[in-house]
């Protein structure tokens, strides 16, 4: 350690929608260290790394690599300079073998036209052995578990000669066991002289394997620290700008009538796999029913059928004793359903339309806002202006296109629209994903207010903090089934919840019984 291998000075990046993602950040890397880049979603970590990897061009600033000024215009150039990146979403071709993926783009060639498969296998095997990666290079990537896929990504970068390895939230998709294994590998890479940038917001992991940490908040650097000299509490304070997670004042739950009834719900995906497997539950007015789980365990499919977006299911779903299958989305919404979709850009908004157009799609047809033919634009306009104020949407005016707003503000537009109809049942799917802390706690506060007002709320979230803070009852979904249902959320720890989420623990009593409180 000691030599500076990389300096990024005064980097600024502004995205085409006007969002300043990184504002005057300086970042240094010493040879052979594992350097954590720490910050919440939207703090600018990924953007900074995209600048380093040549995916984004910065507005200002310079990059000095091994003492020379480097102008990195594309990932190809970054790779040539010895920088490798393992993205959060893997960039692998599932139908190809491990070896083919490793050599992809720099394949050994046979008789100047064909790929030399044997050599590809040999080279991949060699590189896997050098770094002690236990992996069968002849296997197809689609058949590998997530942990191994990640290893393939790392090998891919190493094969291309990466000295500096950027890992973008590598543990987000891993089980605890896989994470342990990854850490062992990373330590070995460090011994071999590689420098690693470890992007994360998990403090305990950083404590465990990182030497130094640079903390980012709101696009700025809050400083670089030796991990051994800084407490997790201090790191957390710098990262989120508050000492602990805000706890909300929640009144004791006051249960009213049953709003949502789900019985023996089964959803089969395209590939014939059961996405949701015989779920039964009730949600009553006045409670927040949390559904926690690692993404991809059936939550998305569940939300789709609850909100009427899909009617491909077996079993029974009723809202206010009405069969969901027999009603279209407009009718469900008019019954009092509101839906915060998982992916706000796909289902939640039209980015090329202005805020006003986006805030009214669920109620323009109501007599307050339109006659038989024409819209009552004056009334809509004043209502939208009120909503913008009430939900603190940061914008120039309602005429601004939604695509020009930041993620948090787009989410506020979505939430404002969904909550403005005075809903009776809210299905909130990852309501605060990828948005800033302020917006997130604002939205959570609103959800609690609606619960207090007697609304039934289904909160689907992968954010443990969120489900633990908000839920009155909490179910954990794993592979389409509830692996645990908890009435007493207060005494539940993250660690305990994690075990249910990863399927390590499951409550066998839940098998087949209809859950009622």
């Amino acid at each position, binding site marked *: 350690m000691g030599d500076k291998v990389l300096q990024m000075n005064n980097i600024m990046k502004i995205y*085409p929608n*006007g969002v300043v993602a990184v504002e005057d950040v300086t970042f240094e890397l010493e040879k052979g260290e594992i350097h954590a880049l720490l910050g919440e979603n939207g703090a600018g970590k990924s953007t900074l790394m995209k600048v380093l990897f040549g995916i984004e061009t910065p507005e200002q600033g310079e990059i000095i690599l091994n003492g020379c000024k480097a102008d990195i215009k594309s990932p190809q150039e970054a790779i040539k300079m010895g920088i490798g990146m393992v993205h959060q979403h893997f960039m692998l071709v599932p139908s190809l073998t491990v070896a083919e993926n490793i050599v992809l783009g720099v394949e050994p060639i046979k008789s100047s036209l064909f790929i030399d498969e044997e050599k590809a296998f040999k080279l991949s095997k060699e590189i896997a052995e050098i770094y002690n990666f236990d992996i069968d290079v002849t296997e197809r990537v689609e058949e590998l578990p997530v942990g191994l896929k990640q290893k393939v990504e790392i090998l891919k970068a190493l094969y291309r000669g990466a000295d500096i390895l950027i890992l973008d939230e590598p543990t987000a998709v891993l089980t605890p066991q896989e994470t342990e294994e990854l850490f062992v590998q990373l330590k070995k890479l460090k011994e071999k002289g590689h420098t690693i940038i470890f992007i994360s917001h998990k403090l305990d992991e950083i404590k465990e394997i990182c030497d130094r940490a640079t903390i980012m908040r709101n696009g700025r650097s809050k400083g670089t620290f030796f991990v051994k000299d800084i407490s997790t509490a201090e790191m957390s304070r710098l990262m989120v700008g508050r000492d602990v997670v805000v706890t909300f004042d929640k009144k004791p739950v006051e249960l009213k009538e049953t709003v949502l009834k789900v019985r023996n719900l089964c959803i089969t995906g395209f590939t014939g796999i059961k996405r949701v497997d015989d779920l039964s539950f009730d949600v009553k007015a006045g409670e927040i029913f949390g559904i926690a789980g690692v993404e991809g365990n059936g939550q998305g499919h569940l939300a789709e059928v609850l909100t009427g977006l899909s009617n491909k299911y077996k079993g029974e779903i009723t809202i206010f004793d009405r069969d969901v299958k027999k009603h279209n989305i407009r009718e*469900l919404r008019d019954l009092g359903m509101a839906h915060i*979709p998982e992916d706000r850009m796909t289902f939640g*908004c039209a980015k090329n*339309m202005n805020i006003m157009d986006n805030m009214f799609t669920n109620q323009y047809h109501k007599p307050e806002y339109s006659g038989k*033919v*024409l819209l009552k634009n004056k009334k809509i306009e004043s209502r939208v202006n009120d909503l913008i104020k009430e939900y603190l949407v940061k914008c120039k005016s309602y005429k601004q296109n939604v695509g020009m707003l930041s993620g948090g503000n787009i989410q506020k537009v979505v939430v404002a629209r969904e909550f403005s109809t005075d809903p009776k049942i809210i299905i909130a799917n990852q309501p605060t994903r990828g948005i800033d802390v302020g917006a997130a706690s604002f939205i959570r506060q609103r959800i609690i207010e609606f619960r207090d007002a007697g609304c039934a709320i289904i909160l689907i979230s992968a954010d443990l903090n969120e489900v633990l803070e908000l839920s009155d009852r909490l179910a954990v979904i794993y592979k389409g089934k509830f692996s645990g249902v908890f009435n007493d959320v207060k005494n539940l720890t993250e660690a305990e919840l994690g075990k249910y989420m990863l399927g390590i623990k499951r409550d066998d009593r839940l098998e087949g019984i209809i859950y009622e409180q």
Partner: protein
Amino acid sequence: MNSNTKLNILRIVLSVLIALLISFGIIFITSEEPVKAIIQLLTGPLQSQRRFGNVIEAMIPLIFTGVGVSIMFAANEINLAGEGAFHIGGLIATYFALNTVLPPVISPIAAIVAAGLFGMLVTGVPAVMKIKTESDVLVSSLMMNYLILYFSNYVLNNMLRDPKAGAVVSYAVPDITKFSTIFPGTRIHVGLFIALAVAVVGYVFLYKTKIGYEIRITGENRDFARYSGINTVKITLISQLVGGFIFGVGGGVELLGMYNRFTWTSLLGYGWDAIIITTLAKKNPIYVPFAAFFLAYLRTGASIMSRSTDVATEIVTITQGIIILLVVAEQFLSKYKHKIISREARATLIEKEGE
């Protein structure tokens, strides 16, 4: 006006200028008398009342088709059957004029409404086929145009053809059904007012009514529209029917205003012109008359140029092509756009620090 609108206008103006410059370059290379040709192209239409009249006459059908396609494309459905709808509009208006006896004023109105209804049918068929069979609208609507052309030729030959006339044309349309001229010395007809009214109504329809709002949301993001509770299938169909109606009316108005007989035995290309117009007008019917005027002016100028110099009218198709390429090229001026945006963002940063 926000920076985005300004930028859009700048992009269109620049596109037009660049396209003209390239065309001038070609004229300079190929023509014996380039200066005269360019002057004729640019100022020719202003040199007499009759010539300016030609611009307005040419503008009328372009407004109809521009508005029609703007409404169809607003639902993000690339339905190109407007061409056929326009054609059948002319045919039906003629048929109606020749086969019904109605009082003045009522007669032309009834004729163009009938034309519109048939136009609706033409654009509606590909739309319904998509709903029922998931066939690709682009392909089926293109094929529809040929179907209409030969259907129209059949009707002309077997039901409307005037055997005494030298060519394949219909009987003369009675004066009672024709649109009267409004400016002596030109052929500008009452259809101008209808066209302008259609542009305004089209704008109100898309931007002020419930259905228009539904069409725009569906066009911008179909998933979002469905999630919001909009019946996207129904709404898309409606937009295709309304667009087809306007195309049909346009065909009827063009025939009753500018022709004595139905003479269309091949497709006229108004469906394609409509795409140029809607691109320039950014799918907003209220801008369509301006775009239509521009295109009509350019074409009239080109035809004057070709009559008085050695440059052919086809030069404007090059100009049109370049304009469209530049206007639809998303990345054109994107660096400049990014500069403006980052300047604004920096200004807000400084503002914040000042607080």
